[in-house]
């Protein structure tokens, strides 16, 4: 057993550092460091830089145009990028639909879609949830009826993250209303410019626009956009979810969050002539959080080590998402506590548009409450924590 990285790993880390230093635009790194809102173009500039290097699809095997990295290399890559304030990679193309296409798609689809995903020239979004089908996804009702060489799609999707920025959407649709729930679902790729698609914003509690409703009114989708077999969409969706589980714990981001809290506590004055970091109770709250992050990190390392040895990750990965989301939420909760009264002013122009507006409190303070409100989503999306626990109690503990 050895915690240290090998010489090769260290050389690799230096290579990643060097690349990020040279290719991550400073304005983007500054925004990430300051917890600012990113625009489509910010994500695209960074992802395209990674794409040119062949690193955007860093989890892909070589035969599909990925770098074929080891598990350790992926880990080093993710952590190094996060430490250097690179934006998170938007997962919809590179981590979600891409692997579905190269695993279940035909050659024509691979040639048509994979290069754009590798280069990030196309923005994908995920069309799973519907107003009536959230946790119970398999009850989805958006219909796709085959007519000649097209599917006619009718229905609505919701909670589409960044759907307003998307060029393409991958959808779960019901192709056979007669079959058993899970068996009547297919996986369809749809061009967002197709007539009949309407995107409507959903405004979040913090005032931001990141999710949407997407309506389909007699949308004609070429049948060649069906991935795999009709009626097997649920299998592909489950494959995709399994892929999504690693990395969703956002451990590198949480480590950065803990450091951010320490910085805040050092600059917030405590009303006793000292700073908040001198307050033992607050210091212990940060320490407690850091211990939680460490437990999560070593859980992930155990899983990575098992995978590196060629095995499958054990049951430990199942709770990464639960604890990861709780920790992210706790970080924002403590930030609100840290900034005191200056959590109160609401500055949407500064928050959303980086307007040239003087922050009312310290520059980190106006972000605290909106982030706290926003990050409640992490225990809801990607399978709510209640659903995750149902799965663990059944699949892992056999209850």
């Amino acid at each position: 057993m050895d915690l240290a990285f090998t010489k090769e790993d260290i050389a690799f880390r230096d290579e990643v550092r060097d690349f990020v230093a040279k290719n991550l635009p400073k304005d983007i790194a500054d925004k990430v460091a300051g917890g600012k809102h990113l625009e489509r173009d910010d994500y695209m500039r960074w992802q395209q830089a990674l794409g040119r290097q062949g690193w955007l699809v860093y989890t892909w095997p070589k035969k599909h145009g990925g770098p074929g990295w080891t598990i350790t290399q992926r880990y080093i890559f993710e952590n190094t990028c996060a430490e250097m304030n690179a934006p998170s990679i938007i997962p919809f193309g590179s981590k979600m639909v891409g692997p579905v296409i190269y695993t279940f798609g035909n050659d024509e689809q691979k040639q048509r879609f994979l290069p754009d995903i590798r280069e990030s020239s196309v923005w994908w979004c995920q069309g799973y949830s519907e107003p009536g089908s959230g946790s119970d996804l398999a009850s989805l009702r958006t219909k796709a009826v085959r007519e000649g060489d097209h599917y006619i799609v009718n229905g609505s999707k919701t909670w589409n993250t960044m759907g307003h920025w998307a060029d393409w959407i991958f959808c779960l649709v019901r192709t056979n209303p007669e079959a058993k729930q899970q068996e009547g679902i297919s996986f369809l790729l749809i061009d967002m410019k197709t007539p009949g698609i309407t995107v409507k914003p959903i405004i979040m509690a913090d005032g931001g626009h990141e999710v949407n409703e997407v309506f389909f009114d007699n949308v004609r989708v070429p049948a060649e956009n069906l991935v795999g077999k009709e009626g097997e969409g649920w299998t592909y969706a489950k494959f995709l979810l399994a892929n999504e589980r690693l990395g969703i714990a956002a451990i590198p981001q949480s480590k950065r969050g803990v450091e951010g809290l320490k910085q805040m506590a050092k600059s917030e004055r405590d009303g006793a002539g000292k700073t908040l970091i001198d307050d033992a109770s607050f210091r212990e709250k940060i320490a407690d959080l850091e211990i939680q992050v460490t437990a999560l990190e070593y859980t992930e390392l155990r899983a990575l080590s098992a995978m590196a040895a060629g095995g499958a990750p054990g049951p430990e990965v199942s709770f990464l998402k639960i604890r990861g989301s709780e920790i992210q939420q706790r970080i924002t909760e403590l930030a609100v506590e840290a900034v005191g009264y200056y959590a109160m002013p609401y500055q949407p122009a500064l928050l959303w548009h980086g307007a040239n507006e003087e922050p009312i409190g310290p520059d980190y303070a106006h972000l605290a409450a909106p982030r706290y409100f926003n990050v409640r989503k992490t225990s809801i999306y990607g399978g709510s924590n209640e659903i995750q626990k149902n799965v663990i109690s059944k699949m892992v503990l056999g209850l």
Partner: protein
Amino acid sequence: MDLSYSDEQKQIKEGVERFVREQYAFDTRRKIAGSEKGWLPENWAKFAELGWLGMSFSEADGGFGGGAIETMIAMEAFGSGLVLEPYLPTVVMGGGLLAAGGSAAQKEALLAPMIAGEKQFAVAYVEKQARFNLADVAVVAKKDGAGYAISGHKGVVYNAASADTIFVTARTSGGQRDEKGITVFAVDAKSAGITRRDYPTQDALRASELTFDNVKVGADSVVGKVDDGHALFEGVIDRSIVALCAEAVGCMDAINKATLEYIKTRKQFGVPIGKFQVLQHRMVDCFTNAQEARSMTLMAALKIDDADATVRKKAASGAKVQIGKSGKFCGQSAVQMHGGMGVTDELSVSHYFKRLTMIETLFGNQQHHLSRYANLSVAA
């Protein structure tokens, strides 16, 4: 012992609840929040007409002889509808300062017109370096002829843009964190030398940063005694805490009610999600938390006028700790049980959650009041 409301109190309760029901539908509230002042003058006129602005003041002060219980009743109902009218800064805080420390002349000039609905107040006490320590006062009031000249910065002053009079804590002597040497001034909001930066708050109220640059006030603007303002001010903040706790209880009941309704009607897997035991238990915990919050608020309202300052302080801090804990639990749980809908601006749930979050900070958060309580009770 009898913890039930009197007939008069029941009437007040019904009246305020009716107002909230009829005038504060969630969509209406959204419009009011976006209006010029962020609250409606016609609502304020109604509050005056119905006696809600004066009910907690003694008859000698031009009020109707009620007290903390009447304030609690009104604030709870306001909380249930997320009412935006500035009752807390004007009536509870500003009015409270005048009632507790104002001279006869000040009561006549300020309190009487406030009760009549003609004057609005704001209270400027927050300072960046002070965190929640009310005695950490860097704003200075220097002797200036017969009066004083006030200079310095106060933050997050609720209702400052609408206020006619701004009450300001300032240092007239002593070191920056000495309790002795703090004086409360009633300052005309239009005085020369006051600069305001107005903004909305996370919970759709209005507040301002205020800079005082050599603002001249007369000796008659001192509320209470020179250098002895701290005890007066702390007492009023403790009373304001009880009012705020009552508002939080109203918020919690409303958010719990909305959540209960939601989990009874929202279906997944072919059944209402309220059939899932994990949500049932969480809903029960929400209910329990709200009950504890209600109990602590009532306790505090009953003890807040105790002659023993320690009893009063413990009551306020104890209630504030409970409200912080319960408010966070009910708010986070409501969002979680609403699923995606809980994090949207569209439903009222997120708005109650935001208000509860700001309430947790206002007048000192859980941690602050837990330490204060521990020092008063456990260490004593």
